[in-house]
C-alpha cells in the first residue's frame, strides 16, 4: 500500500452551504426525509428491556461474580491455597492464607488448603486473570452481575460465600445463541 493514498482511496465529504433557496427547500424536504427515519422506528417496535423484571441473559464467557468449586464426588475443595490467583490479580484484591491439611482435618485434595480466601469485590475489576491463573480450576468467574450492597465491608466475599451455590439470578445463554 502506497503513501500518499491515491485519490480513489479517498472519500471527500461535502455539503451544500446552508441558507438561501436550497435552505428553504431543505427546511421542509429534508426534515420530512428525516421524519421517515423517525416514523420507521415505530414499526420496528421498542428495543428496551424492562430491567429488573426482565434480565438480559449473559453469554457463557461472561465474567461475573467469582465462584470457588468443590470436587463433586468427594466434596473436597479444589483450591489448594497456592496463591497464584492472588499473584495474578492486577487489583490486588485476593487474600489467601494457606494451611496444611491433616489426616483428621482434610479440606482440599492437595497438601494444603486455603484457610482464608477473601476477594474484595469493591476493588475487583473483573478481568478474570484469577480464573486464567488458577491451575486447578478452583476459581471461576460466575454469571452473577447483581452485586450492589449497602456496605463496602459486605463486598468482601469470604471462602464460605464464594463456595455457596449462588442464587439463580442471572439467565445464561447457550453457546451459539
Amino acid at each position: 500500500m502506497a503513501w500518499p493514498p491515491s485519490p480513489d482511496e479517498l472519500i471527500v465529504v461535502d455539503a451544500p452551504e446552508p441558507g438561501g433557496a436550497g435552505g428553504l427547500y431543505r427546511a421542509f424536504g429534508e426534515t420530512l426525509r428525516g421524519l421517515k427515519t423517525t416514523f420507521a422506528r415505530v414499526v420496528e417496535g421498542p428495543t428496551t428491556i424492562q430491567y429488573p423484571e426482565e434480565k438480559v441473559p449473559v453469554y457463557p464467557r461472561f465474567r461475573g461474580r467469582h465462584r470457588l468449586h468443590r470436587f463433586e464426588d468427594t466434596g473436597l475443595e479444589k483450591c489448594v491455597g497456592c496463591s497464584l490467583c492472588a499473584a495474578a490479580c492486577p487489583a490486588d484484591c485476593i487474600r489467601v492464607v494457606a494451611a496444611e491439611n491433616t489426616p483428621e482435618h482434610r479440606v482440599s485434595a492437595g497438601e494444603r488448603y486455603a484457610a482464608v480466601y477473601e476477594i474484595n469485590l469493591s476493588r475487583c475489576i473483573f478481568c478474570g486473570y484469577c480464573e486464567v491463573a488458577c491451575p486447578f480450576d478452583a476459581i471461576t468467574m460466575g454469571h452473577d452481575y447483581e452485586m450492589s450492597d449497602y456496605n463496602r465491608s459486605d463486598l468482601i466475599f469470604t471462602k464460605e460465600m464464594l463456595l455457596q451455590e449462588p442464587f439463580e439470578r442471572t439467565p445464561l445463554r447457550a453457546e451459539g445463541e
Partner: protein
Amino acid sequence: MSTELDRPTGAPNAYREQEASIDLSARMHPIPAEAPEQELLTLNMGPHHPATHGVLRLLVTLEGEVVRDLKPIIGYVHTGIEKTAEDKSYWKAIPVMERMDYLAYYFNAMAYCGAVETLLDLEVPKRAQYLRVIHLELNRIMSHLVWLGTSALDLGAISMFWYCFRDREKILDLFEYSSGQRMHTRYIQVGGVIDDLPAGFDAKLRTFLDDMPTRVDQYLDLLNRNEIALQRLRNVCPLDEATLLSLGVTGPLLRAAGNPWDLRKAMPYSSYEDFEFAIPVGRKGDNYDRFAVRCAEMKESVRIIRQALDGLPEGPWITEDRKVALPPRHELATSMEALIHHFKLVTEGYRVPPGEVYYPIEGPRGEYAVFIRSDGSSKPARVHMRDPSFVNLQATAPMTKDAYIADLIATLAMLDPVLGGIDR
C-alpha cells in the same frame, strides 16, 4: 504573561520554583488591546457539565455571547494509570492500561501489546491479527456511535442518542460474546488474543454488519442535509491544516481539514495492509466535515470487518512461544513442564529485553501510541500513553476563538474528547 518556561535544574527548591512559574491567570492568550464593547466575563464551564463530555473544566472569557478566550483545565479524573503500570508485570498491566480511554479499550490494549511485542520481537499469528482488526474496528464504530449520539444531543437532536445507543448495545453484546465483558475486555493479549471466536459469533457479527450501513444511512437522513444541522455545523469553527499539524492534532479532526493522514494506511500494523478501504476527508475543516468524516468512517470500518471475517485465516490465535504466552489449559493437567511455565509466567512474568519503543496506532480519535522503556526486568520501567484526546484538546481554543458560546458546545462535541484518556 510569560511564554517561556524556565526549567530550574537541580536546585533544592526546583519544584517550588517551577510551580511558581506556572501562569494561573484565567486567560490563555492576551486579549487584543482594542477595548471590548462589553465588559469581559470570565466563567467556569464545568467540571460537572453534561456538555463537556466528562469532567472537563473550561475557563471561558466571554464578551457578551462571544468566546474571546478559553483555557481548558484538566486533571479531575486523574487515575495514575501510567504509574500503576510500572508496578505490574507486563501481562498484568494490560487490564490497567485498557482503562485509560474508556471508549477505546481495544485500542489502548492494542497499542500497549504492540509495543511489548516490538520489544520482544514477537511474531503474532495471522489469525490473531485478523481477530484484532475485527475487534478494533468494532470498537471504532462503537466509539463513533457514542460520539454521534452525545454530539447530536448537544445540538438538540435527542432521538439520535437513542438510536446510537441501541446500535452500540449490539456491539457491546458482541464484545461480551467473544471476550466475556462489555467494556474493558482484556481480549487483546501480548502475542495474540486470549481466545478464539466462540461458535455462533460469525453469524451474529454478519447480521450486525448487514444492518450497520443502513443504520448509518438512517442517521445521515436525519442529520446530513437537515437545515438546522447545516446551520449549526457548516462553516462553524474551522481550523486550517497547518495549525492542526502544528498542534499535533490527528485523527478525524485532521482528516476533516483535508489531510488524509491515517496510520492504518500510512504505517500499516496488524495486517491492515490486507484490507481495502478508503479514507474519508473533508475540505474545509469545519464542524460539518468533522461530523461527516466520522460517519463515513463507520461505513469503512464495516467494510474492513467484513473483509477480515471473510479472509479469517486458520491457525493459532496466540503465539506458541511458551516464554510469553500461557500454556493451553488442557496441558496443565498432563505436562509438568507446562505447569512450571504457567507458575513462572503468572508469578514473575516474562522478561523483556532492555530498550525503548514507541508504537502508534490509529484510534477513533487519532494517534494512540504507547511508549515503553524496559530495563530488562519483568516490569516496565516507564509506560506512557500518547492519548489523542489530550493532544486534540489543545485545538479547542484556536477553533472557538470569537465564536458563539453555543458553537463552543458544538465544537467541543465534534472534538470528541474522552476525559479518561486525557487525564489518565
